């Protein structure tokens, strides 16, 4: 099992490295370099030359890549082209906000989807089950902003329960913060819930058709005990995978949701940076998002290894 874990960890690190190369290459090798971007229209050959020298743009790409990555790992994310401020400073508070929103959404979505998915599996093809499959189709077809605006109209404008703009600030206490992020979090929950629910259901049903479950049913155990005690432990590995996949998806869906609710998170920052073509900021945000995505997938695989009883005990 240790070998398996080590291999998965190594693969994860390799993936993150490849990802960072792609992010670096995507923005460095393509036409137009940072010097011309900084100067814009006021660029003269001499001024471009001096900036290139100052930023070390004359070094070969591999050297610049290693420098960029080591600086990044030490917390120096570079300087924004748009306002000349260090990127780390801009990202710090926003990263916290984004993580806060994502964790609130995950804390609601994960347990809820597993409970609902198991309920659907207990009565497969029942009314509740069919309602879920319709809900899934609807959820995968609706863009995030549609769900968000429907929620705003119903919950914020008509009912007036929660604010439609999620303006969060560091001085708020936890209760106020939760109140402010309620709608964006709810939107994210709705975006990922259906899919997680459906996969939970599918993996529980998959296990339900195995002989030892038939045995449990035949010896007269009540339905919920069969599902919770016998089926669920073996369905856990695929469920963990789906949960991780959707949490990773949350990281992406959060970008659109942050823009809808004008939430001061990293997604908003990244979108603004793309519009201003502020490449270093986009790179930094991109690497953080991609790293989180890869990391979540890796954690899921490792948890799946742990949840497999056959691998847990040394032979």
């Amino acid at each position, binding site marked *: 099992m240790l070998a398996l874990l080590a291999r998965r960890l190594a693969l994860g690190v390799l993936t993150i490295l490849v990802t960072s190369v792609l992010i670096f290459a995507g*923005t460095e090798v393509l036409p137009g370099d940072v010097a011309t971007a900084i100067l814009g229209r006021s660029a003269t050959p001499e001024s471009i030359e001096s900036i290139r020298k100052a930023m070390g743009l004359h070094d070969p790409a591999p050297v610049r890549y290693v420098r960029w990555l080591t600086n990044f790992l030490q917390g120096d994310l570079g300087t924004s082209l748009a306002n000349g401020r260090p990127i780390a400073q801009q990202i710090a508070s926003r990263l916290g906000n984004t993580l806060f929103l994502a964790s609130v959404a995950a804390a609601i979505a994960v347990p809820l989807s597993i409970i609902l998915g198991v309920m659907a599996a207990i009565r497969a093809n029942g009314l509740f089950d069919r309602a879920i499959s319709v809900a899934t*189709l609807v959820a995968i*077809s609706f863009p995030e902003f*549609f769900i968000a605006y429907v929620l705003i*109209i119903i919950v914020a404008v*008509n009912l007036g329960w929660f604010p439609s703009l999620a303006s969060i600030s560091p001085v708020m206490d936890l209760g106020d913060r939760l109140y402010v992020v309620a709608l964006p979090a709810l939107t994210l929950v709705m975006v990922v819930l259906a899919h997680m629910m459906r996969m939970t259901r599918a993996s529980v049903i998959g296990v339900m058709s195995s002989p030892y479950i038939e045995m449990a049913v035949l010896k007269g155990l009540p339905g919920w005990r069969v599902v919770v005690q016998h089926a669920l432990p073996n369905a856990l590995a695929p469920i963990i995978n789906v949960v991780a996949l959707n949490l990773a998806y949350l990281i992406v869906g959060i970008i659109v949701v942050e823009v809808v609710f004008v939430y001061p998170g990293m997604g908003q920052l990244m*979108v603004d940076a*793309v519009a201003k073509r502020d490449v270093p900021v986009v*790179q930094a945000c*991109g690497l953080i998002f991609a790293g989180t995505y890869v990391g979540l997938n890796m954690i899921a695989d490792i948890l799946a290894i742990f949840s497999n009883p056959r691998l847990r005990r040394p032979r």
Partner: protein
Amino acid sequence: MRLFGQRLSVAATIGLVIIVVNILAAVLAPVVAPYGEADIIGDVWDAPETSQTVFGLDNLGRDMFSRLLYGARTTITIALITTLLSFTIGCVFGFAAAVAGGWLDMLLSRIVDALMAIPTLIFALLVLSVLGTSIPVLIGTIAVLDSTRVFRLSRAVAMNIVPLEYVEAARLRGEGLAWVMRREVLPNALPPLIAEFGLRFCFTFLFIAALSFLGLGIQPPFADWGGMVRDNAQAISFGGIAPLIPAAAIAILTIGVNLVVDWILSIHAARRA
């Protein structure tokens, strides 16, 4: 009702109607639309009753219904071109990897693994920040990123076809890689790929809408649904439903395509059984 000798389910019929209506809207937009794409005909966010229009006016006083029709044109055309391009790239490389095997398969599969390690939206934002937003860049970027998924599927499908006798026979006759891919693999791989085409279309369509909503997709003066949601977002704060209309159009078309895809998949499953 029947289509290709198969009975249409109720859901599939609804889906098909939605698709046909959308295509008609896109094709006939200049004929059907009461006003032009950019014509300002009244006050900002006039209600349907005061402006004598179907859905009222938008954030600049343009007719929402007309813009919805023109928007269908832009959004659907661009999504369709992107999907076609993504399928061409994905199938050519996917079939080539399966038929040729060896180092080519190895190389292509690793490249695809690397591209899929990053969420598509993040990757697209990176490319757009470097190249700037224009329609060709948008189509190219999304097509390449999306073709990774087509590659995986077409390679997997072709892998099952390659060991069959008729492919072997064609190879022994001395046919080249391209001929085998086009004449032996493609016709037999088509049914699962058609369903996938619908799903990929939904994905690119939603993806372009999301980018336009973020202000990074299709740029004005073209009307497109994602951009219309963005333009009218402000109306929501005083209870207007203007942004919901184009957003609903996006959702409805996606549901329509999904319903038809489900039907195609169910026929496919029934034939196999």
